């Protein structure tokens, strides 16, 4: 049954990918990319990688679709005609693909218990993390505690991405505040429904943020979902109103705040006599210290991701509105 579902999903994934290659209308390509992300998230679900599926669904299908649409609004809808011969790229792709297929021949059998992944660190996490960290969701223990340093690096990378987008595009406020173009003014039903839904979306984001210790989720996913709520607001009611709710300046403060909050937990644990990001020293009981540390750093990740995603969207959308008004 599970194999059948996997095969059907993989087949649909391949069909979508092939269709994306042959389409010239980039608008349709973006929509098919959304389906592609949904499908790969479904494959993660059927592989039982719930946290990864969560991230793929919210980032891949949600935010990146919105951002790609924003890019299309800036650049135009059709693919440029390619004048070059495609023989050399085709050869490169075939050779690379053949090398990759050849590489898979040496891979250990799928799902075998003696595979290398199951022999080194994984058993330790599975056996020790309930005692050492004590969280029901082992993925969160690994990400936030055992590999807290990596996660700090990832948060910094997300922050750096925001800096990159800001320095390239920047958020432009228009001089005259009200333009006819802003928001979906014609869609009255959509406006009412969006107003109804946004509080629940934010509530769900908070649930994901603070329930990440027990179920799938965590700071990254929560930040993306919260950003999606405000993106919905900005899409329906227009950017000027969204700027009044959460201004770009405030986001520019929020993004570094999350990273600093994360790093300060590490510094505080050093101050208490442990190593950097050693949560055991945060409280008298090591397990309780782990809990405090994980909740605070997840909050830091959530704040940074929220601020970064929303300000990247602001950057694209404000440029798109400007270029379309002129």
């Amino acid at each position, binding site marked *: 049954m599970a194999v059948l579902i996997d095969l059907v999903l993989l087949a649909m994934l391949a069909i979508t990918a092939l269709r994306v290659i042959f389409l010239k209308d980039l608008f349709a390509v973006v929509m098919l990319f959304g389906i592609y992300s949904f499908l790969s998230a479904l494959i993660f679900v059927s592989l039982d990688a719930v946290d990864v599926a969560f991230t793929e669904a919210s980032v891949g299908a949600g935010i990146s679709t919105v951002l790609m649409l924003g890019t299309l609004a800036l650049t135009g809808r059709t693919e440029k005609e390619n004048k070059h011969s495609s023989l050399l790229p085709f050869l490169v792709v075939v050779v690379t693909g053949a090398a990759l297929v050849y590489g898979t021949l040496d891979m250990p059998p799928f799902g075998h218990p003696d595979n290398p992944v199951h022999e080194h660190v994984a058993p330790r996490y599975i056996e020790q993390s309930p005692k050492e960290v004590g969280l029901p969701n082992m993925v969160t223990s690994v990400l936030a505690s055992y590999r807290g340093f990596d996660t700090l690096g990832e948060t910094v990378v997300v922050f750096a991405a925001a800096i990159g987008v800001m320095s390239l595009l920047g958020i432009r406020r228009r001089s005259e505040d009200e333009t006819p173009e802003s928001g*979906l003014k*014609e*869609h009255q*039903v*959509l406006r009412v*429904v969006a107003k*109804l*839904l946004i509080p*629940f979306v934010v509530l769900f984001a908070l649930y994901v943020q603070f329930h990440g210790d027990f179920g799938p989720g965590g700071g990254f996913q929560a930040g993306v979902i919260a950003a999606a709520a405000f993106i919905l607001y900005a899409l329906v009611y227009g950017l000027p109103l969204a700027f009044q709710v959460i201004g770009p300046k405030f986001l520019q403060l929020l993004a570094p705040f999350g990273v600093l909050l994360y790093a300060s937990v590490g510094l505080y644990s050093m101050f208490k006599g442990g190593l950097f990001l050693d949560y055991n020293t945060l409280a008298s009981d090591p397990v309780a210290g782990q809990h405090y540390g994980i909740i605070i750093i997840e909050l830091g990740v959530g704040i940074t991701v929220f601020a970064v995603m929303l300000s990247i969207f602001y950057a694209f959308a404000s440029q798109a509105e400007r270029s379309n008004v002129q």
Partner: protein
Amino acid sequence: MFVLDIISSVLLVAGVFFGLSGAIGLFKFPDFFTRVHAASVTDSIAAILIISGLLLQTSFDLNTAKLIFIFFFLMITSPTASHALAKSARHGGLLSMAERKTSDNSNTQENQH
């Protein structure tokens, strides 16, 4: 328990039937607005039936609450999305089949925006 299982199966199968009929309607119906009709109406009824069927399988805990949340979410968003899409198509100047016929027959037809 046995009775609940039977009711749940009936609901699930009925939901799937409507889902399938909607997908077929997506191909078979003649113009865009009828296709919206096929997709959105069956989407709603399939969601109602399947989620009710699954609700009977829970033991009334957090999962029940989540299913009810999904239920209301789909009930609100799915018709809204269809409505907004149809409205957008209308504004974009897409004509229904009947309108296209009349405008083909007598080229004096005016677009109602």
